[in-house]
């Protein structure tokens, strides 16, 4: 049984932020959960899927975030409580439906949990989902610790049902992927039935059709809901003040920055000088509550992550209530006291507080800091991200790179989102020339392909993972076929959403809860769309390279090459070596080899070691995954593979 449901009310458990959110959803009595995998959000749906059967839930990994929100909204329209989960840029994907959903309103409680990634620890952006809450006018909550991550979810569901609107609860990487002890609440026993009432009067919110029209009327309702939410937030339990009655500095904060702020105050020993107003309801802001605390001090420091969302909204309230609160001096991101890029941490808050309070702080003795810096400089060589040992992408990009070099017309690769995004780095031979959103590689390739009308004759390649293919590549490929764009789409099919932990997608015969479902065949889909399709095993380097060369040389519309080889970390493959790899020391010519050390200098799989003393290559048996690809690279046959029984 999952530890998420074995705990009883009052038990204290060590939960990851995402587990706390999932437990909160169970305590709120959700029936449906949908999402698309994306770090740092994925564990919420994974944990709910694990208990779907016992708790009578429907949990799915949807094809993309927009569909996920539509699936969750359907449950709400039919009177059930539903949760929708995605990473920050997923909200952009869902945003068109989001706008109209705000207009139509909801019935059963509907909560959207976006998990933002300040500092882009696992993203190629540090987008802010909070702006959508203000832009489309829905209430926004931000948990500040693990207990709140759980407790805010039932609160958000109750609010959603009271106001009949979607509610957003925004998490961040450092909450979602951090763990803390959480006191559990009770799990409800009720199991409501679904029914969609749709034949009532057109303006009847509970029995009529669900529409965002008539716009003037529905938009007015939405703004009234926001006014009511602001009123509710005046007494929400998530807005707290701690500190002296007349602080020198009022620090206003939200989310994980609350914990960083407390830490900074502790480290600096300034608890007598700084008061902390922690806001859990950050849109719309409770203005009377804010007025009360703004009166405490004329100096205000706002601490939050990425762009100054809270800071600007607080300033708006301060301006509107200037007569009551007086003139303030604000410190935060707008004046550069805190950076507006990257994630926050205690040290950044410490630095901001030393500036505002006019004090100094040394994190460690100067001589120690100097010695540690020097030791790390000489002793800890930089550790770049790499494809895992045995990763099919290393072989695929080796072939792509080799084919482009042999073709010699300055061809290039439009990249896409997944583990294979790492091909922009040396581990993938710096192979990507563009990298943007899900599906953008094929969309850009489609556009580049049409530029032959302007004498551009560089071969255009795009890459896509199998999950990304279903998420957003299919419309781009339809566009390329329809306009006969001369491009080659390479589908790097590793049979799962590998980057985020191997979640299933529509190409697999299994769903989120492990049940059998219909699998869609990428090859047949591409053929049906009208593309010419070839398949290859990327571990066969020679055949893959020749195929790529042929495809780039041939005329006509889009070609699709499906390179199918399962992820080295997949449950089917993990820890099982196909080959035992050895080096024939007599054959390895080391630095004398005419290949100029292709294996370690260029291919550089982490399973290989360059023994600088012996001037020869070795296999690291702890790291090597036994895929056998490096044997195909050595020109003298020194790297040898022996099939493991």
């Amino acid at each position, binding site marked *: 049984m999952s*530890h998420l449901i074995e705990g009883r009310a009052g038990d*204290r458990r*060590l939960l990851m932020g995402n587990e706390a959110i999932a437990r909160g959803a169970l305590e709120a009595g959700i029936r449906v959960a949908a999402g698309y995998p994306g*770090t*740092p959000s994925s564990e919420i749906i994974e944990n709910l899927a694990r208990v779907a059967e016992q708790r009578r839930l429907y949990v799915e990994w949807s094809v993309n975030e927009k569909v996920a929100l539509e699936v969750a909204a359907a449950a709400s329209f039919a009177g059930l409580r539903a949760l929708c989960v995605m990473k920050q840029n997923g909200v952009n994907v869902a945003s068109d439906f989001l706008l109209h959903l705000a207009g139509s309103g909801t019935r059963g409680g509907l909560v959207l949990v976006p998990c933002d990634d300040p500092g882009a*620890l*696992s993203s190629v952006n540090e987008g802010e989902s909070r702006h959508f809450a203000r832009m489309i006018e829905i209430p926004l909550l931000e948990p500040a610790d*693990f207990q709140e991550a759980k407790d805010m979810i039932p609160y958000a569901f109750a609010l959603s049902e009271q106001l009949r609107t979607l509610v957003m609860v925004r998490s961040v*990487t*450092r909450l979602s*992927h*951090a*763990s*803390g*002890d959480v006191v559990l609440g009770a799990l409800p026993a009720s199991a409501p039935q679904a029914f969609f009432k749709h034949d009532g009067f057109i303006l009847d919110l509970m029995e009529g059709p669900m529409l965002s029209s008539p716009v003037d009327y529905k938009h007015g309702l939405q703004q009234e809901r926001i006014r009511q939410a602001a009123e509710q937030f005046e007494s929400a339990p998530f807005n707290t003040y701690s500190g002296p009655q007349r602080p020198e500095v009022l620090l206003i904060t939200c989310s*994980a920055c609350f*914990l*960083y702020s*407390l*830490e*900074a105050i502790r*480290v600096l020993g300034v608890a007598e000088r700084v008061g902390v107003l922690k806001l859990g309801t950050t849109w719309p802001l409770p203005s009377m509550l804010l007025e009360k605390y703004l009166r405490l001090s004329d100096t205000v420091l706002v601490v939050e992550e990425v762009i100054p969302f809270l800071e600007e909204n607080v300033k708006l309230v301060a301006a509107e209530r200037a007569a009551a609160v007086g003139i303030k001096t604000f410190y935060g991101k707008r004046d550069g006291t805190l950076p507006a890029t990257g994630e926050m*941490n*205690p*040290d950044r808050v*410490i630095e901001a507080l030393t500036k505002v309070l006019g004090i100094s702080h040394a*994190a*460690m*003795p100067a001589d*120690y800091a100097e010695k*540690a*810096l020097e*030791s*790390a400089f*000489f*002793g*800890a*060589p*930089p*550790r*770049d*991200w*790499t494809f*895992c040992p045995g990763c099919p992408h290393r072989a695929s990009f080796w072939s792509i790179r080799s084919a482009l070099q042999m073709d010699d017309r300055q061809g290039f690769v439009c990249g896409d989102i997944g*583990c294979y995004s*790492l091909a922009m780095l*040396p*581990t993938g031979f710096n192979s990507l020339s563009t990298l943007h959103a899900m599906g953008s590689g094929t969309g850009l390739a489609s556009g580049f392909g049409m530029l032959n009308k302007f004498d551009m004759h560089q071969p255009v390649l795009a890459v896509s993972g199998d999950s990304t293919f279903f998420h957003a590549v299919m419309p781009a490929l339809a566009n390329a076929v329809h306009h006969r764009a001369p491009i080659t789409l390479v589908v790097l099919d590793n049979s799962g959403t590998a*980057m*985020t932990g191997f979640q299933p997608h529509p190409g697999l015969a299994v769903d989120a809860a492990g049940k059998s479902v219909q699998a869609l065949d990428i090859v047949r889909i591409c053929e049906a769309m009208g593309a010419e399709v070839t398949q290859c095993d990327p571990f066969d380097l020679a055949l893959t390279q020749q195929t790529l060369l042929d495809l780039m040389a041939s005329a006509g519309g889009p070609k699709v090459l499906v390179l199918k080889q399962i992820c080295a970390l997949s449950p089917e493959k993990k*820890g099982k070596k196909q080959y035992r790899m050895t080096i024939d020391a007599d054959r390895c010519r080391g630095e004398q080899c005419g290949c100029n050390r292709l294996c370690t*200098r260029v291919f550089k*799989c*982490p399973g290989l*070691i*360059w023994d*600088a003393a012996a001037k020869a290559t070795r296999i*690291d048996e*702890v*790291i090597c995954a036994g895929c056998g690809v490096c044997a195909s690279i050595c020109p003298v046959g020194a790297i040898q593979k022996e099939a493991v029984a």
Partner: protein
Amino acid sequence: MSLDHGKTAMPADPYNIIITGVGGQGNVLASRVLGNMLLADDLHVTIGETFGASQRGGSVMSHLRVSAKSHLAPQIPRGQAHLVISLEPTEALRVLKDYGNPEVCVLCNMRPIHAIGVISGEARYPEPEELKQWIRALSRKVWFVNATEAALAMGNPIFGNILLMGALAATGVLPLDRGGFKRVMHRMMPGDKMAPNLEAFDKGRLLVNGSL
């Protein structure tokens, strides 16, 4: 130090532990096991982790914090680590640069994992003796162990992290015992994994006792 105790005695409040290593070494599991072992009735445990892209061969770090008073930030402030547990020796130096101080204790597995800059020849990997000297000079107390070799002898390098947990218990730095480990593993692992993990924990204890 007593092994089975009713009350928790942490050496400081908050007490800050960093577990570091390379993506794929089992950092996250180690932090969960240790966090659950320390989660006594009167303590709050906070663990901050980096995983996702950094799992792909990059440096990974878990910040594990214990306090009787409150939840703490999932990131330790600079210079405030009390204990560094390193699954790979160069990662210990990387962590000490930011979080070290003259009072820090270090438990370090000596098995190197070469970064791709080292594999390609652009960077040099230090000699073990150099590494030991640098780490020693930055720590109050230090234990070097060969957990990966012991794990390989058990048949799977992944036991290295549990071996380190056993080694940590043997250092006596924290109130950890075999019974607590067993209770936590019982909750976290399927039944058939219990025996080899207990064996790894016990072998880990010998790594420290043998080297003292």
